[in-house]
């Protein structure tokens, strides 16, 4: 028994020789908002469609509210689904679209009418009952699609890139509304997107997928601060990777020996055996950069090969003495450093993550 709304365990989907989803497991708790985030073709949509019942998994089990739904047809799963292209039935009015599921459940006429009105008012579309989908704008269609899903009061709402067909300004507005709505209705939501901004801002937790596998499941803060793999580090935000080998440093902390021989100290988050090939991750905005020589721990020196002025922030590409390129982003407190200048870069150990080097990943 568990109080998870969705349990995905060891789910696999193969199409012939290609594996679209490879042994994916994660849970979504009651009332939680979880995003499936990854580049296109990573298997996130296939995973969502398997939960909905549109795609039959090759292996694995799916449970919704502690009921095994792995082999149930979609109509028996009692889920809400919002499609990327809205999928509003073109031959039905807005009211008919929203009320179709209720009609199938043989609800009374008055109940259906009230429920339609309620769902449309929640999504801000009251008064549009008799319009046809083609008479609505993209944003309005999106709201109808949402109202259609909400009208049935599903235990779980699945959304497949629902905002990706909207223009940027509308996308941001809709994103905020969605977040408010979800917080108000406390509806368990699984949300597929390739937009990290969307995933990070909306979700309680994010499942990062790549090449059919789960890379990391974590809260947005954790993803950014403690990426489990270099894929996650690279996909969520911008990261510098410095390659080297792990060394044990006194005081229980870890260190990485760069190619130049210099050792950088880090706070150990993941266990790494000394001597292993590792990568040191440094976020560009977590470094300090000066033109004056600095002595001490975790100081790297190099030469600015590109400096970009963005007003609020300044971005530099620095060639370290060891040959690596390091990107740095600093707030515009200091003087702008010109290309060619010799600089010193400080990284605090708590801002430096060490992760094992994976095989091609």
């Amino acid at each position: 028994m568990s109080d998870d709304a969705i349990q995905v365990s060891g789910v696999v989907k193969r199409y012939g020789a290609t594996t679209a989803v490879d042994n994916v497991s994660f849970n979504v708790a009651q009332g939680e908002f979880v995003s499936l985030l990854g580049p296109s073709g990573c298997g996130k949509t296939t995973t969502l469609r398997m939960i909905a019942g549109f795609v039959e998994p090759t292996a694995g089990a799916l449970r919704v509210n502690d009921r095994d739904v792995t082999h149930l047809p979609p109509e028996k799963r009692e889920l809400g689904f919002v499609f990327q292209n809205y999928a509003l039935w073109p031959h039905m009015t807005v009211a008919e679209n929203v009320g179709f599921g209720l009609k199938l459940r043989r609800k009374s006429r008055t109940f259906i009418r009230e429920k339609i009105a309620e769902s449309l008012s929640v999504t801000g579309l009251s008064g549009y009952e008799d319009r046809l989908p083609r008479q609505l704008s993209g944003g309005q269609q999106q709201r109808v699609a949402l109202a259609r899903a909400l009208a049935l009061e599903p235990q779980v709402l699945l959304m497949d890139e629902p905002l990706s067909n909207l223009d940027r300004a509308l996308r941001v507005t809709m994103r905020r509304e969605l977040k408010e709505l979800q917080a108000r209705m406390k509806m368990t939501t699984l949300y597929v997107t390739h937009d990290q901004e969307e995933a990070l801002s909306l979700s309680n937790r994010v499942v990062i997928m790549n090449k059919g596998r789960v890379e990391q499941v974590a809260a947005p803060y954790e993803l950014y601060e403690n990426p489990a793999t270099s894929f996650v580090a690279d996909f969520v935000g911008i990261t510098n990777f410095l390659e080297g080998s792990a060394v044990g440093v006194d005081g229980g902390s870890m260190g990485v020996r760069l190619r130049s021989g210099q050792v950088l100290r880090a706070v150990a988050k993941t266990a790494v055996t000394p001597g292993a090939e590792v990568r040191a991750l440094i976020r560009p905005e977590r470094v300090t950069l000066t033109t004056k020589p600095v002595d001490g721990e975790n100081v790297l020196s190099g030469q600015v090969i590109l400096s970009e002025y963005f007003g609020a922030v300044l971005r530099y590409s620095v060639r370290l003495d060891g040959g690596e390129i390091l990107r740095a982003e600093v707030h515009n407190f200091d003087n702008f450093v010109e290309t060619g200048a010799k600089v010193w870069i400080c990284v605090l150990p708590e801002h430096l993550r060490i992760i094992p080097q994976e095989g091609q990943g």
Partner: protein
Amino acid sequence: MIRFDFGTAALRLITLLMMTFLVFPIAVTLVVAVNPREFILPPNGFTLDWFRAAWSSKTFLRGMGVSLVLGIAAAFLANVLALPAAMALVRNNFPGKAALNIILMSPLLIPTTIFSLALYIYFVRIGYGSGLLPLLVGHTIHIMPYALRILTASLHNLDPSYEEAARIVGAGRIRTLFSITLPVIRTGLVSSFALCFILSWNDFPISVFLAPPGWTPLPVELFSYIKFQYDAVAAALAGSLILLSALAIVIIDRLAGLRRVLRS
């Protein structure tokens, strides 16, 4: 300076001649059908007498009845057979799909003469003899590829998420088919039905082989009539058929686009 484009002018002239060639017999039929002086051209007036005669002839009315029932039944059956097949072909990719498509289109590749003869012999040999069934089967099979072609094209344009959206709100397969799929592709269905009907309605070669006595479709009836009689009543009947076909052409073109339907 006037540039005289000889190439285009020649093409235009040939096209004009060709169109005249195509339209001429149709026009002649229509003119004769409303010309008070039987077959004497140019016409000296306008009359609907020939039409009246054609439409009150018992033989023709019966032929029309047969063709109507046959056309509706064959068009219905052809679409019933073609729709699930079209769905399976559009929704899935599997090895041998191209070959299967050719098999389903095969009635178009077999000369009508041989197809009709084969069905004729078949029904004689299985002891069925003559009756309505061979005629209905012949028409249905012959028009099925056209239905398959139009329905495949319509289903290609149908977003599968419409059906998924219906399933997820609780509609079963059958309910989804009737409440969502068929209404969404209704223009394709109507034009498929119209094309199938008009092909069956106008068919001669299959009917002449397979029509049982007493159940003569209109084109065969018209054929026997003009073989023995030469009057403007036949022109009026032919004219009626032309007008009906024109109506079907307009419907199909509006709904599905003629080009896509008749692509050889």
